[in-house]
C-alpha cells in the first residue's frame, strides 16, 4: 500500500516542471503569443510607437474586462450570455448620467453603476438558483432584457462622459492618444486583485470548488447557490466595467451595439485563455492576453494585406485550430487518468 502512495508522490514530483507546465503553461504561452504578435505587427506597419501601443491596449480594454467577467462566472460553473447586454446597459447608463458632470460625480456614478450591475446580475443568478433552469437559458433571456432596457434608457445615441473619466481608461481626455498607461494600470490592478482573491482566499477558491464538483463542494460545507450569486455579481461588475471603458472610449452611449456578438467574443476569449467551459479550471491572468489577441487579430491581418472577409475566415480557422490542439490534449489527459 505504502508503495503505491510512494509511487503517486514520486511519479508526479519526478517532474515538477511538468506539473508547472500543466498548471501555468497555458497562461505563459498566451502571454508569449501576444508579445510575438505585437512584435510582428510592429514590422508590418510604417510606424510603431506609443500611439500604436495605446490604440491596441485602450481599445482592447473592454473585451478584456468583459472576458474576465465571463471567466469568473465560467470558473464557478456557470456561463453568462448576458454580459454583452450588461456592457451595453452600463455603457448607455453611464453616458446618459455622466454628461457634463465633474469628475467626482462621474466617479460616483461609475461606482453606482458597478454596484447596480453586480446587484442585477446577482438577481439573475438567484433566478438560476431557484428556477433550476440552466445558466445559458436564463442568461439568454437576460441578454435580451438588458439590451431592451438599454434601448429604453437611451433610444437614440446620446450622452457624454467626463473627460478625466475618459482619461482614466484611455490616457487621454479625448479618448485617443499615445498614453497606454492608465489602461495598463487599471487592468493590472483589477485583474491581479481578483486573480489573487480567486486563487488564495477561501471564498475565491470556493468558486473553483463549486465549478469543479458541486456535490463535493456541498459536502465540504460550501453553499453552491451563494457561490453562484457571488460569481455572477462579480462577473456582472466586470461586464459593467467593460461598459464604462466603452463609454470612455466613445465618449457617448449607443444602445444599438449588438450585445450578442460581444458575449460570444468574451466566450472565445476565455477559451483562448485556457478557461474550461466545464468550470473549475482556468486563470483570469491568462484572459488578459487572450482578450487582447482576439481584439488584435483583425488589425494584424489587414496589415498583412489580407482582405477583411478572408481575415474573418482566417480568424475562425485559427481559433478552431487552437481549440483542436488543446481539445485533443485535454481528451488524452482524461484518458490517462
Amino acid at each position: 500500500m505504502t508503495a503505491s502512495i510512494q509511487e503517486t508522490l514520486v511519479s508526479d514530483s519526478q517532474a515538477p516542471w511538468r506539473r508547472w507546465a500543466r498548471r501555468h503553461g497555458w497562461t505563459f504561452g498566451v502571454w508569449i503569443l501576444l508579445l510575438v504578435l505585437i512584435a510582428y505587427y510592429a514590422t508590418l506597419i510604417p510606424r510603431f510607437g506609443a500611439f500604436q501601443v495605446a490604440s491596441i491596449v485602450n481599445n482592447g480594454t473592454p473585451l478584456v474586462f468583459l472576458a474576465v467577467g465571463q471567466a469568473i462566472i465560467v470558473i464557478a460553473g456557470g456561463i453568462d450570455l448576458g454580459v454583452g447586454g450588461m456592457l451595453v446597459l452600463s455603457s448607455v447608463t453611464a453616458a446618459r448620467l455622466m454628461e457634463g458632470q465633474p469628475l467626482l460625480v462621474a466617479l460616483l456614478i461609475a461606482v453606482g453603476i458597478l454596484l447596480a450591475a453586480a446587484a442585477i446580475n446577482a438577481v439573475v443568478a438567484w433566478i438560476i438558483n431557484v428556477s433550476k433552469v440552466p445558466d445559458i437559458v436564463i442568461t439568454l433571456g437576460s441578454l435580451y432584457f438588458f439590451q431592451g432596457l438599454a434601448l429604453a434608457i437611451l433610444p437614440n445615441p446620446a450622452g457624454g462622459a467626463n473627460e478625466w473619466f475618459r482619461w482614466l481608461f484611455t490616457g487621454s481626455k479625448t479618448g485617443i492618444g499615445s498614453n497606454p498607461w492608465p489602461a495598463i494600470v487599471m487592468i493590472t490592478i483589477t485583474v491581479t486583485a481578483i486573480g489573487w482573491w480567486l486563487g488564495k482566499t477561501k471564498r475565491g477558491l470556493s468558486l473553483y470548488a463549486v465549478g469543479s464538483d458541486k456535490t463535493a463542494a456541498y459536502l465540504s460545507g460550501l453553499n453552491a447557490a451563494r457561490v453562484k450569486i457571488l460569481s455572477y455579481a462579480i462577473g456582472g461588475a466586470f461586464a459593467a466595467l467593460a461598459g464604462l471603458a466603452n463609454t470612455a472610449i466613445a465618449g457617448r452611449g449607443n444602445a444599438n451595439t449588438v450585445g450578442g456578438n460581444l458575449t460570444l467574443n468574451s466566450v472565445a476569449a476565455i477559451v483562448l485563455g485556457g478557461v474550461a467551459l466545464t468550470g473549475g479550471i482556468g486563470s483570469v491572468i491568462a484572459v488578459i492576453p487572450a482578450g487582447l489577441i482576439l481584439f488584435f487579430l483583425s488589425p494584424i491581418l489587414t496589415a498583412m494585406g489580407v482582405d477583411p472577409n478572408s481575415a474573418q475566415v482566417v480568424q475562425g480557422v485559427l481559433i478552431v485550430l487552437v481549440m483542436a490542439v488543446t481539445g485533443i490534449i485535454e481528451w488524452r489527459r482524461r484518458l490517462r487518468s
Partner: protein
Amino acid sequence: MTGNQSLLAARDVAKRYGPVVALRSADLTVEPGEIHALLGANGAGKSTLVKILSAVIPADAGTISVHGRQADIRKPGDAMAAGIGTVFQDPALIPDLSLEQNLRISELDRDDVLPWLDRMNLSHIDLDLLAGDVPLAVLRLLDLARALARDPQLLMLDEITAALTTDQADYVFELMREWKERGRSVLFISHRLGEVLEACDRATILRNGIHVAHLDLAGVEESALVTAMLGEELVEKVEAAEEEPAVLLDKEMTARPVVLELKDIRLRDRVNGVSLQLHQGEILGLTALEGQGQNELFQVLSGDRRPSSGELHVDGERLSARSPYDAISRGLAFVPADRHQALLPQRSVRENLAIPLYNRARRWLSLVGDEEERVEQAVERLTIDVRAGRQVQRLSGGNQQKVTIGRWLASGFDTLLCFDPTRGIDIQTKAQIYDLLREIAGTGSAVLLYTSELREIPLVCDRVLIMYAGRIVGELPAAAATEEALLTAAHGLNEEAAI
C-alpha cells in the same frame, strides 16, 4: 438507555423521495465512547440517515438531539459545529483543486491534518497534488483525516472501507479504536460483516427504512446479523448461493481452448509485463492491493487505452483495439467498478441495457427487432427492480450495478471482464452476482474477475492471479486461495509462489 445522556439520539426520522420511502421511521442512539454499527441491505436507508444527521438533506420528520439537547441542524456547517464529523459514501474532495486548496475551502490547513495523515502512513503525501490525480482509496483516507481534524464528538463513516484494501482498512479501525478510548463515538457503516463484528460494540439494523434491531455485538454470529438485515426468508437463498465453490481442476481447465491471452502487456510505469491465459468456461480471479496497475490493465483489456507494448490475443487472433468498440466487437465485455462510468443516469433501464446494440451505424435506422425480449430476459435473469426504472439514477446502487452487467447479457459477449463488481453491494445481491458469473462460465463463456474482496475468490473463481507492482506475482487454485495466502502474495512477499 435514555436519550438524555446519549451523545446522539435520533427519533422517528423519516424521509421520502417522491414515491420512494427512504426512511420510514428510524431510531438511532449513539452513546459516548462506543463504536456503533449501522447495518442494512442496500437501500435500507443508511446513507440517507447519515446525510440527514449531517444536515446534507433535510428530514421529513423526526427529532435529533445531541447530548440530550434538541439540536437545530440546518446546513452541513451546523452539524460540524454540533461535533458531528462525516465521511460520506462518495468522496467530498474537489478534483480540480490541490489537496492543500481542498483543505483551505474547509477552513483547515496542512498542520491540522498532517498528524492524522501520519497515522495512516500518508504523512509524505504531496499536498500540492490535484485531488483528481489521487487514487480513490487515498481520497477516502484524506476525507477521514479532514473529518478527524475537526475533532468531532461523533465520527460517521459511510462505507469507508468499501474502497479500501485490508491494510488501509486496518489504519481506519486503529483510529476508530483510539477515538473510542478518548471517550468519543464512531458510527460505522459497512457491508463487510466480518470487520463490523471485529470493530464495533453495538449495532442498529435498518430494513426498508425502519430500525429492526438494536443489538450488542458481543458474541453475535454473522448469520444472526444477516438474518436481521434481510429477514428470515431470504437467508436460505443466500446460503444456497454460497455453498460448494465450483472449483475445477487445473489440468481439466488448461485442456480447454484459450479464449483470451495477454503476452507481456506493458503500460508506461503502471503495468510491467503481464501475461496470462483465460480458458473457455473459466472464471479467472485477479486480486491486488490498491494501485498495483490493475485499473490500467483492465483499461487495456477493455480497449479504453492502448498498451505501450505487448500483445493481446482473442481466440488466437491478435487484437489491437483503437477504442472499446474494437474490443467489444471481438466479444470482450467490460463491467467497470464505478457505476458512473457505466450508466446513462437519466435514461430508462431499457435504454441502458440496449445501448451496446447500437454501436454499429447499420443499426441506426430503426430499433433492433428483439430489443424488448433481450431487455426483459436480462431483467429477469438479474431480477432488476425496475419500478424506478424510468431513470436509472433512481435505482438502488445494487440495482444500478446489475444494470451494468445486464447490458452485456442483453447484447451478447464471449468474455466478461468484471472489475470489482460487488463493491458496496449487499450480501444478497452479491450472492446473485456470484450465481450469475458461474452460470455464464457454465455456458462456455469466460470471466476475468478482479476483486478486492478476498472472501469472494474461493466462492466464484477457478483460479486466481495476484498482481503486485504491475506484475503477476502469484497464481493459486481457488481451493488454496485462503485470505492469508492471498494477502502475503499481494504484498509481493512470497516470490516463490510466482511462476
